[in-house]
């Protein structure tokens, strides 16, 4: 999506409103699935198998929705330069999944993480990253927001339909693993709300601003978006050919993973796995 946005910026294409809404829905569904995956793995890391099972049951609802919309569970292939490839023909069909999700999050996942004494014993005060350290290590996304830094591209530099749908970022000052859990959990609730509003206000219109393979003129663009793990940054340079001359990607994991270092110093070995999981490291994303 970010790449398409960069190419559109170079070519000066403005995508239709329906396409922007669909992109927002997919981006937020992806955030839901990523955060749920993270929460499940986090629960598994503190040995909480039952919570993992509950979270993954919820996640399957998200995956079903994504598959029904895009045709694949992981590889959505929704975006093209100029808009989106696939439509959401029946937006109301996806609302029950959202209701189930909100219910599961509100009644099981959040209370368990914040009230179960054994879960609290493993997360509260663990892997602390202070606000100053967060600035120093330049962390982004939920890790930064859990350390009291209110940065979110969706709010600071609204793109797609975020300005229109209204968006509130979640910030916690504590900076420990528990704060990161809570930030992600509340972000999921916000995502559910965003998706619901976007689905209900899906305006009719074309899906694409262009037909066929668009021509991208000579030029360059940088685009920032808020990926589930934090700010993703794309630089695309075009020489007018069929493929870009240069694409530079900075993924959020690339900056978040080094920040594990100040978090783990002085912590017991047993907490290492949950601390490194708490920044949601995507090892494959750091291959640059």
């Amino acid at each position, binding site marked *: 999506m970010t790449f398409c946005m960069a190419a559109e910026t170079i070519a000066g294409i403005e995508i239709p409103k329906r396409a922007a809404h669909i992109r927002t829905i997919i981006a937020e569904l992806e955030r839901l699935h990523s955060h749920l*995956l993270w929460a*499940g*793995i986090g629960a598994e890391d503190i040995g909480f198998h039952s919570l*993992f*099972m509950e979270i*993954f*049951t919820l*996640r*399957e609802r998200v*995956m079903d929705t994504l598959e029904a919309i895009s045709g*694949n*569970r*992981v*590889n959505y292939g929704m975006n093209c330069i100029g808009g989106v490839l696939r439509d959401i023909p029946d937006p109301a069909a996806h609302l029950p999944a959202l209701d189930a999700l909100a219910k599961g999050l509100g009644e099981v996942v959040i209370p368990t993480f914040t009230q179960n004494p054994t879960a609290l014993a493993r997360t509260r005060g663990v892997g602390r990253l202070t606000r100053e350290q967060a600035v120093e290590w330049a962390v982004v996304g939920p890790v930064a927001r859990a350390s009291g830094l209110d940065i979110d591209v969706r709010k600071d530099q609204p793109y797609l339909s975020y300005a229109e749908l209204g968006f509130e970022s979640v910030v916690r000052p504590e900076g420990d693993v528990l704060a990161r859990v809570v930030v992600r959990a509340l972000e999921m609730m916000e995502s559910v709300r965003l998706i619901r509003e976007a689905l209900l206000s899906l305006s009719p219109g074309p899906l694409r601003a262009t037909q066929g393979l668009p021509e991208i003129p000579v030029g360059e663009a940088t685009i920032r978006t808020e990926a589930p793990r934090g700010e993703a940054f794309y630089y695309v340079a075009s020489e007018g050919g069929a493929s870009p001359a240069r694409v530079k990607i900075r993924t959020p994991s690339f900056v978040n993973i080094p920040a594990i270092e100040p978090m783990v110093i002085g912590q017991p070995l047993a907490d290492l796995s949950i601390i490194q999981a708490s920044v949601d490291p*995507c*090892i*494959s*994303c750091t*291959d640059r």
Partner: protein
Amino acid sequence: MNLIERVIAISRRRSPWICRLNAGSCNGCDIEITPLLSPRYDAEQLGIELHGTPKHADIVLISGTLTLRSRQAILDIYDQVPSPKAVVALGSCPSSGNVFAGSPLVLSESLDNVVPVDVWVPGCPPRPQAILDGIARAAQLLEDGSTKSQIQGQRQNLGGRLS
């Protein structure tokens, strides 16, 4: 085949323990393995358990492209798995490199050239039920004694006896 051998063969099918190996994957296949443990797919109903160490495994799931650095690691880990063993390759990457083919650090060759792969599960990434199906297929091969490593072992034994 006597009774005990028969029981052991059946046990191999009914209790396949998995070791997961990421050779250089984009994580897509890996996040589709995790739902296998979740209530909907519940790998435990087929006796599948996910183990972290190759020493406990029967089936190695390999996902991702073969890279310059992962080739030796795959060989090392494969050698640590006690026989009989099977290898399941997930997705398109192990067979060809998929979109990563042609990158300087990616060996755009089939995983078959490194370790004997028994089952290929196509998809990018494969759906969890396809992975489950692939594991079940590999487990069936283990019962029949017809995984590539088992057949190779038999040949070596025969060769030893003949010479």
